Each structure stands twice: as structure tokens, then as C-alpha cells.
């Protein structure tokens, strides 16, 4: 049975419709004379038709409803698209989170209606009740933010002076190199901070280049 191994490979090609015309002719000539290969081929053909002959069965009538009833609830699902969206837009997501947190923070600051003074930068101030004094000869290198109070600038502020519900008792252009900003509304208060954030980003960009 020297024919077997090689012929079986050609037989598989014939079955899989991958044989060339020459191979096919060679194979059918061969099985005319070789009963072993002929039997083998017919049995494989029969096997194929038996397996292909298996009927397609239908699932139960309630199949679709059963699947739908078992799916995780839609409200759980509805969080998904947001999640996906956030994954695709990380910078917008981060910025939005930042603004939300920042607004909350600023709002809480706004709500403390007590007197408050902050130096964003270097320098010392003095206090007289609810009045902030920048003493003569003192240089504030940065911004001065005063809330619910008064400010008296006798020295210098090399930055902005932000007055939130506050007033300036003495300030001339010579004393403040930056702007004197009066902020009396919460939106302005928030706007001021957002503006300063963007200025900060711009500064980063500038340094980066």
C-alpha cells in the first residue's frame, strides 16, 4: 500500500476543494483501480454528508425574552457610556473635575464671611482689627487678597490686590504694580480664580517652550 500516505493528502485536498485539476484527475484515476482509497474517500464523503445533514434546531420561543430579562439592569448600564466617554477624553474630564472641585472650594471660601487676608507670594502684612496694613518700606512680592475687610497700602505690592467685599483705604498707582480688583459678586470671585488658573497654565506653557 505504497499509495496511502501521499494519496490521502490529495484526497483531503479533493474533499476540501483545494486540489488542482491535475491532482484531481490523478486522484480519480487512482480510485478507479485502488479499492482501499475508494472506500476511504466514500466513507469520508458519507461522514461529511451525515454531519452536514444535522438539522438546524430552533431555540425555545421565549429565548429572547429570557436573555433580556437576565441582562444587567439598564440603570447600571447607563453609567457605562459616560465611563467610556471619560476614558476617551481624559483631559476634558480632568479639567471638568478640577473646575467642579475648585468651584466648590471657592464657594465654601465665599460662604465664610469672616475677615480674611492672604498673601500669595512673599511679604508681611500687619493687622489692625479688620484692616490689613502693608507697612511703609514693606514690599509684597505677589498678590494680596482681602475678604470682608479693609486694606491700607503704605508700602508696595508687586502684584495684584484683590478686594472681596473689601475696600482700599489708601492705594495709589505707585503702590501697586499690578491691578486693584474689586470683587463683590460670587461669579466674579470664581472668575478671578479661573482667570488666575489660566494665567498659571499660560505661564507653564511659556516656560515649556
Amino acid at each position, binding site marked *: 500500500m505504497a499509495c496511502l500516505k501521499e494519496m490521502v493528502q490529495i484526497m*483531503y485536498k479533493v*474533499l*476540501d476543494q483545494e486540489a488542482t485539476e491535475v491532482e484531481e484527475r490523478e486522484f480519480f484515476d487512482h480510485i478507479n483501480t485502488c479499492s482501499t482509497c475508494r472506500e*476511504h474517500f466514500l*466513507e*469520508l464523503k*458519507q*461522514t*461529511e454528508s*451525515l*454531519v*452536514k*445533514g*444535522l*438539522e*438546524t*434546531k*430552533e*431555540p*425555545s420561543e421565549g*429565548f*429572547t425574552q*429570557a*436573555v*433580556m430579562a*437576565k*441582562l*444587567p439592569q*439598564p440603570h447600571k*448600564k*447607563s453609567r*457605562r*457610556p459616560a465611563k*467610556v466617554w471619560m476614558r476617551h477624553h481624559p483631559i476634558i474630564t480632568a479639567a471638568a473635575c478640577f473646575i467642579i472641585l475648585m468651584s466648590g472650594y471657592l464657594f465654601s471660601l465665599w460662604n465664610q464671611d469672616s475677615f480674611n487676608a492672604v498673601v500669595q507670594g512673599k511679604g508681611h502684612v500687619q493687622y489692625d482689627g479688620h484692616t490689613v496694613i502693608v507697612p511703609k518700606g514693606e514690599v509684597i512680592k505677589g498678590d494680596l487678597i482681602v475678604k470682608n475687610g479693609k486694606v491700607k497700602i503704605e508700602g508696595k505690592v508687586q502684584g495684584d490686590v484683590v478686594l472681596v467685599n473689601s475696600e482700599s483705604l489708601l492705594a495709589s498707582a505707585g503702590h501697586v504694580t499690578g491691578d486693584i480688583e474689586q470683587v463683590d459678586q460670587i461669579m466674579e470671585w470664581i472668575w478671578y480664580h479661573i482667570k488666575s488658573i489660566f494665567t498659571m497654565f499660560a505661564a507653564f506653557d511659556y516656560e515649556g517652550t
Partner: protein
Amino acid sequence: MDQKVKKIITKVRKGDHQAFAELVNLYKTQVYNICLRLVRIPQEAEDLAQEAFIRAYTNIDKYEIDRKFSTWLFRIATNLSIDYLRKKKPSAYLDAEIPGTDGFTMYTQLASEEPLPEDLVLEYETQEWVQREIEELPAKYRSAIVLKYIQDLSLKEISDILDIPVATVKTRIHRGREALRKRLRHV
């Protein structure tokens, strides 16, 4: 067809729960038949097919929209069925050789005790018999045979579903077909 399926998937991804029912209706017969031919028992096939759709739904974000959806879905169904068989091993004892009987298994014994009078074999019985013989194939041959002959899929699609090279798919089909031939030749 592909465009229609992609539209439905986009809807499902946007949270349209009900759109998924359309996908189930489109593919339930094929998915059910893959499971049925792999596990044979209708109730189990039904459960597995339902589970395949549920997994497809919960993982719909992982499906790559430019690939064929049916390939992805059939892959889930095939893997579930094969995992199920692995855990269950229903006919393991049938395949175990009886000591001292030289290749004679419980299955061959059971089969020989049930004579099949040729002229009385009804269509239904032939189907049952072929199905049982398919079930006796090792899982890796069985999945290749089911996908090729029952689902009529191309070698490339089978290779994508089973995640094996086309050459391996071919080998499995050839070996599975030979194993079946030996079981099915005496009609």
C-alpha cells in the same frame, strides 16, 4: 447585514437596552446550534446560548466595531460550551478503557448493546446517532467540525473564532473527520 448590525451595536453602547433584543433575534439560532452541537443536551445548550448573549452584552465595549460581530459572538459561545464540557466531563467514564480489554471502552460496549437495524433507522435516530458520535470527539476536533460543517464557516473565520492558525484548523478538521469516519462508516 454588517451595517445593520453595527447600527444596533452603536445603539446598545449608547445605553439602548432594547436594541440588544434585535441582535439576539438575528443570531439566536446560530448561537444555539453551535452550543447544541457541542454539548448535545437541548436545555444545557439553551442556557449556554443565553449566557453567551449576556456576556456579549456586558462586554459590548470590548468588541472592535470593524471586525465581524458574528465571529466575536460565536467565539464567546464556543468558549463557553467547551469550558462547560471541560468542567462537566459527562462521558469521561465512557471513554475510560476497561482494564484488560485492549482499547475496548464502555462506550463501544454500550453502542454494541444497542443494535441499529439498518432498515429501521429513522431519520430522527440517525441524527441522534451522528450527534452522539460528534460528542465523543475530543473538544478541539469537535469545535472545528461543528463550525465547519454545521455553521458552514470558512477556515479563516474558524481560525478567528478558535484563535488558532488556519493550518491548525485544517489539521483539526482532518483528524476530526477521520475519527468520525471510523465511527460513522457502518450505517
